[in-house]
């Protein structure tokens, strides 16, 4: 967006993080997260971002809410408005009051979608240019995205997600700049693939291996892309496209189906977002 702003991101320390339930194919209570390792990995991500000039805001962790660390799913930030998520799973719906309270306390207008709709925030809704790309079927509803479009007066293109392992849009699609994105095509149905190809001229395709390392779940700060370790091919492709990939280990969070992007919520608009066209 504007050149002079300081990127701002909301994170939540993993004090109570753990695999306490199973709501996606990555999660297995039999394969729990190692708390100390998770703490270390989260800290490394935090420091990497701060090192890139990011101002990181912190949400107070809450006992009994292990997934509160995944702030990307709190809701959708649009200017000074916060459209709060309506989580599909009750275990995560309990996070909402904490997110709402934080945004309210920080001067945002907190808005809610009508009852009976599911919407999982920036996990499923990402701007690329002036268009909001929105993943649906597994977690969010197509109808909820249309409602969000009405609320913010932006073009919303719902994209059907078809693979359980890539249950949120941000697990298989990452806008880098207006007209440019990383993506993993098999996670989308044929219509959605056509939509992405026709709307985004510069696409970097992630291979199966890097997709399963959650290469698409990256945090973009300027021309730097912060991503889980082990996405070698993606790092090369990013370099070719003029980006710098910074790898940081996040395997403890991959056990819950999350990585760099899931652990962050950009508050001032993603690099690729164009809010005022």
């Amino acid at each position, binding site marked *: 967006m504007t050149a002079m702003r300081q990127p701002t991101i909301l994170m939540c320390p993993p004090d109570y993080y753990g695999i306490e339930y199973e709501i996606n194919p990555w999660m297995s209570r039999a394969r729990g997260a190692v708390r100390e390792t998770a703490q270390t990995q989260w800290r490394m991500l935090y420091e990497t971002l701060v090192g890139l000039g990011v101002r990181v805001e912190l949400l107070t962790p809450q006992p009994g809410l292990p997934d509160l660390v995944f702030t990307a799913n709190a809701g959708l930030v649009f200017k000074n408005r916060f459209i709060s998520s309506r989580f599909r799973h009750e275990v995560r719906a309990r996070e909402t009051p904490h997110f709402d309270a934080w945004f309210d306390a920080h001067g945002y207008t907190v808005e809610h979608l009508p009852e009976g709709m599911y919407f999982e925030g920036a996990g499923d809704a990402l701007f690329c240019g*002036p268009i909001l790309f929105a993943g*649906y*079927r597994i977690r969010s*509803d*197509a*109808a909820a*995205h*249309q409602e969000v*479009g*009405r609320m913010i*007066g*932006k*073009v*919303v*293109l*719902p*994209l*059907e997600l078809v693979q359980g392992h890539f249950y949120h849009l941000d697990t298989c699609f990452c806008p880098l700049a207006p007209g440019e994105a990383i993506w993993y095509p098999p996670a989308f149905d044929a*219509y*959605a693939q*056509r*939509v992405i190809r026709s*709307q985004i001229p510069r696409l970097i395709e992630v291979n199966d291996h890097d997709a399963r390392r959650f290469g698409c779940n990256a945090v973009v700060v300027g021309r730097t892309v912060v991503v889980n370790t082990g996405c070698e091919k993606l790092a090369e492709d990013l370099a070719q496209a003029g980006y710098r990939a910074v790898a940081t280990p996040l395997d403890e969070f991959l056990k819950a189906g999350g990585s760099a992007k899931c652990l962050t919520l950009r508050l001032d608009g993603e690099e690729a977002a164009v809010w005022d066209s």
Partner: protein
Amino acid sequence: MTAYPFHEEVLLEGHIIDSLILPKVLDEILMHGGTYELKEIQIGQRQVDPSRARIEVRAPTEQALREILDAIHDHGAVPVVSEDCQWLAADMDGAFPENFYSTTNHRTQVRLQGEWVDVENMEMDCGILVEPERRFATTIPMVRVRRGDRIVIGHRGVRVLAGESGIRKSLFEFMSSPVSSEKPKTVTVREIAHAMRRTREVGQKVLAVLGPAVVHTGGVEHLCWLIRRGLINILFAGNALATHDIEQALFGTSLGVWMDRGLPAEEGHQHHLRAINTIRRVGGIKRAVERGVLRSGIMHDCVTHGIPFVLAGSIRDDGPLPEVITDVLEAQDRMREQIRTGVGFCLMIATALHSIATGNLLPAWVKVACVDINPSTVTKLMDRGSIQTVGVVTDAEPFLRALVHELQMSEAEARV
């Protein structure tokens, strides 16, 4: 395109063109075996403007429709919120309020307190009486309206589940056009025989609507065979059919002509009047059978086999026979009562008047075979809305003989 009977309107809003959601929903409908009609489409003027499509989804069964609606709901297609039907209390006896909803003979539903309710006793050219608190709806003839009856007005909250032409195809599989004098009769007759047997197998009744030519042409014996075999379960006719049938039973003539020789009997023209007189003196057809005065024929067999009959009178009737109902409104009501006991098939032979009267009362899903030597009888029937009719242009007796033969053949086959 087949017009499937089950339908629901859905609304799709948003950036449904650029996101390919609209083509995807339409594809999804087709892939699930449904069809659609785009009732309305508004495309946003600027890229940021949302578009909107109102789509009517059609499916061959209720189940298929549900599946389609569930599938497209995932892409954001939501059923158009329907309104309840509107009604007005009748302000007088014997007439509907203005703007009343006029029925067809197709299956119809009205929306009462948010729920689609089947209209009972489906019949064309009636109004719909509703009792919203009981979620009840029925057709009502104009003349039966009583002040205060709640009558549906306008079209809102009323839907017709029409387009059951596919059923005709399965019942009369070989017929491509409904009426022709140049069709192979054997095939047609076989189809009718099959339809009658199937009707009985599923526990429904066969209604026969007969004109006096059944008797004049010598069809009585065939008809009696059908009655005895349980293949005709209700009879509608007029004074003439019953009179000539009884004339034949008492005198051996029909319209004064010897049935065995085909020659006019001396003073034979009086036979039908004498027959009526005899029955009137005894007190009716049923009494005549009980007293042994009437010992054979269609009416006799109806009485002895407990087949209900409705004899509706007309202005040219002699006598008439005591059972003939001379009040046409009462006759219509008695016919309605009988139809509602579970008629599944109707065989109309050699009568334009009673066939059209019956066609007016039958719901569209009761299949009709209309046999007449005059093709215009079938045409008239269909022009008046009984589109479920298949016609056979032939004289009554040859048709009945062929029908009985066909049924006897299949009985014999069944025994083997």
